């Protein structure tokens, strides 16, 4: 046992000491801050008012009403200019020059035909600002509709009232009642859970593979297998590397929690107005979800790292490893792709089946738990299948590993691998 402990300690300490670990551990929270805080910071920064000119070509009342609407949005400062069709070209030229000299951001032309045809023209420097153009278009649409209805004798006040916006609030309901979370937030939570599990299992699985390969390439394996049983070595390696994964995961979870907890202070520090800050809704990450993610990380990591250990043990060169790891990678990539489908329908047939299959369950089941209420019976069944198959795969892998680590030269095919696994 002391020997296995020595292997665990070595794998853990050497990894935690490396620059790679330091960098990725820091980058995690930086990424989280970018995703949560940056959008609201950017929103406040880009809140400048566009200076535009509204050119009125015999549009009459309509132009005046549109001006009021645009001003009301708070995003446009509008100057109204009247131009009859004769003088229009001259007006357009001088306004174009004004845009070039940056005196104004752009000009919107409405004519008497606008109300009937719905055609208006905007020229400006800021046409690529989707948000500004979107606002302008929807305000224009409102004004046109109001104008059309008014001309047919509908009371403008009634039209105004009819046009009041709709806001569909999608709220997730669980057994514990409404959560106050929106559908969007839930979706992103599930998405994040899937991606993070995929990345962490992949990165640390490949770490195990590289570690096995290193021992083989440096031939240190001969000294090791004359001291420890190959099974002890493999188990120590998997636990040691997995421990680093959990450790990093823990650091990220803690900083994530701190960011959520002190979000208001952080935003205040960055001078984001309170109104903006409160607009950011954070998914409530329950202890259950964290536990499920951690358990499935352990199971999935065991399964995949054992497979990656086999890959490392059966190859001799790095370039061979690149190729030989493909089948294992495919299993993981497949799971990730299915998880996107599971996000849309976490209670569907596909999601249920793939959350039972050992190779995909470590990613699909946590995604389902994050986005829906998974029946306890399904969760239990998935856990049992997953745990049993992980142990089986670890056992089989250890048998192949034991022989592979001392073999150099030609890569074995599947038939040979199976023979190795059966050899006593």
């Amino acid at each position: 046992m002391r020997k296995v402990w020595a292997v665990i300690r070595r794998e853990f300490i050497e990894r935690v000491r490396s620059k790679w670990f330091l960098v990725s551990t820091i980058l995690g929270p930086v990424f989280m801050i970018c995703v949560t805080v940056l959008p609201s910071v950017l929103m406040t920064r880009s809140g400048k008012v566009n200076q535009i000119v509204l050119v009125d070509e015999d549009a009459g009342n309509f132009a005046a009403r549109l001006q009021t609407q645009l001003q009301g949005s708070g995003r446009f400062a509008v100057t109204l200019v009247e131009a009859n069709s004769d003088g229009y070209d001259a007006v357009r030229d001088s306004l174009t020059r004004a845009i070039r000299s940056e005196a104004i951001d752009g000009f919107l032309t409405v004519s008497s035909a606008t109300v009937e045809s719905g055609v208006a023209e905007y020229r400006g420097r800021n046409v690529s600002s989707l948000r500004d153009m979107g606002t302008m278009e929807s305000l224009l649409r409102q004004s046109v509709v109001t104008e059309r209805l008014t001309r047919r004798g509908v009371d403008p006040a009634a039209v105004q009232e009819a046009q009041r916006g709709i806001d569909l609030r999608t709220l997730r309901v669980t057994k514990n009642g409404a959560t106050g979370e929106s559908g969007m937030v839930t979706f992103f939570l599930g998405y994040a859970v899937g991606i993070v599990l995929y990345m962490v299992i992949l990165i640390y699985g490949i770490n195990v593979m590289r570690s096995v390969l290193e021992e083989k390439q440096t031939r240190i394996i001969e000294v090791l297998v004359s001291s420890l049983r190959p099974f002890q070595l493999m188990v120590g390696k998997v636990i040691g590397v997995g421990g680093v994964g959990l450790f990093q995961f823990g650091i990220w979870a803690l900083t994530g929690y701190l960011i959520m907890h002190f979000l208001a202070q952080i935003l205040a520090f960055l001078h984001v107005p309170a109104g903006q800050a409160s607009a950011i809704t954070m998914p409530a990450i329950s202890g259950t979800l964290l536990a499920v993610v951690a358990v499935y990380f352990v199971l999935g990591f065991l399964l995949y790292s054992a497979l990656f250990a086999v890959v490392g043990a059966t190859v001799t060169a790095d370039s061979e490893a690149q190729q030989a790891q493909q089948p294992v990678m495919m299993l993981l990539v497949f799971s990730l792709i299915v998880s996107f489908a599971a996000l849309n329908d976490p209670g569907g047939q596909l999601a249920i089946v793939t959350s039972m299959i050992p190779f995909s369950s470590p990613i699909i089941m946590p995604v389902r738990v994050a986005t829906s209420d998974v029946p306890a019976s399904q969760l239990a069944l998935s856990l049992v299948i997953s745990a049993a198959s992980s142990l089986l795969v670890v056992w089989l892998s250890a048998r192949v590993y034991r022989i592979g680590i001392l073999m150099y030269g030609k890569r074995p095919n599947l038939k040979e691998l199976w023979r190795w696994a059966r050899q006593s």
Partner: protein
Amino acid sequence: MSETNVVAVAGIAKRFAGHVAVEDLSLQVPKGAVYGLLGPNGAGKTTTIRMIMNITIPDEGTIELFGDRLGGRHHSARIGYLPEERGLYRKMRVRDMLVFLAEAKGVERARGGAKADEWLRRLDLAEWGPRKVEELSKGMQQKVQFIGTMLHEPELLILDEPFSGLDPINQQVLRDIVVHLSRSGTTIIFSTHQMDVAEKICDHVCIIARGRKVLDGGLAEVKRVHGGTHVAVAFEDGAAGAEAMRAIADLVAAADDSGVFAELKLKEGVDPQLVLERLMKTGARIRRFERIEPSLNRIFLDKAGPGAADTASPEVAHA
């Protein structure tokens, strides 16, 4: 087998796809011996050692270590092993690496650390302890790995080509340590193809060629049994020497001629005195003429060299 033999190998064979690495090999290593496993490249030395270490399993035959058949890994705490293919974790610090190797042998961490410090000091590597392995020169890495085999104070030390690739100074340092360990009771098996080294430090040898044992026993017996009359001749200059050698060619059975120095095996019944007389007549200036025991190198060439017959039956010299 009795406990006096630390290692007893009986009739082992190992075949790899297409070729036989070791065939019907038996040997006994007495407790406290310095046992040289000699043979040309590809003779099966490393394969034999790997089988003794339980890294590969023989197709036939049995191996006993310390009087039982539990295998090398079972006794791993009593054995130190330096493989032929050297390797260390390149990114690890030297001292951490040594402590890990000791722990893998079941040594307690603190004790392993103390031992590592002690040996690093002894081999003038103390200041390299906190450095990474990859910063060390090849010779230093080899010394570090050598230290790694001794931290748990093994009773049996198995060294596969321990001196290859080392400069003469470091070779001497390691040789001194081997001798020192042997004096304090450690049994040492080492393989080499450098006969001069083996001759100086081994008290038992086993010569292997083409996977088979051709000779084994105590060094003195091996030399006695090998028989024949051997002389060493040294000349002052090579050209005259060559002429002198031609003059005695009919008296010589085998010659290991290195120009100004030659080791000769005389034909059956030839008196060395006659050889000296003939040499004097050629007028070559002689620096040395000595009746000697055959050197291990001579025996090795006779037994394992290109001239030795494939079917040579093993010549065994037991005391």
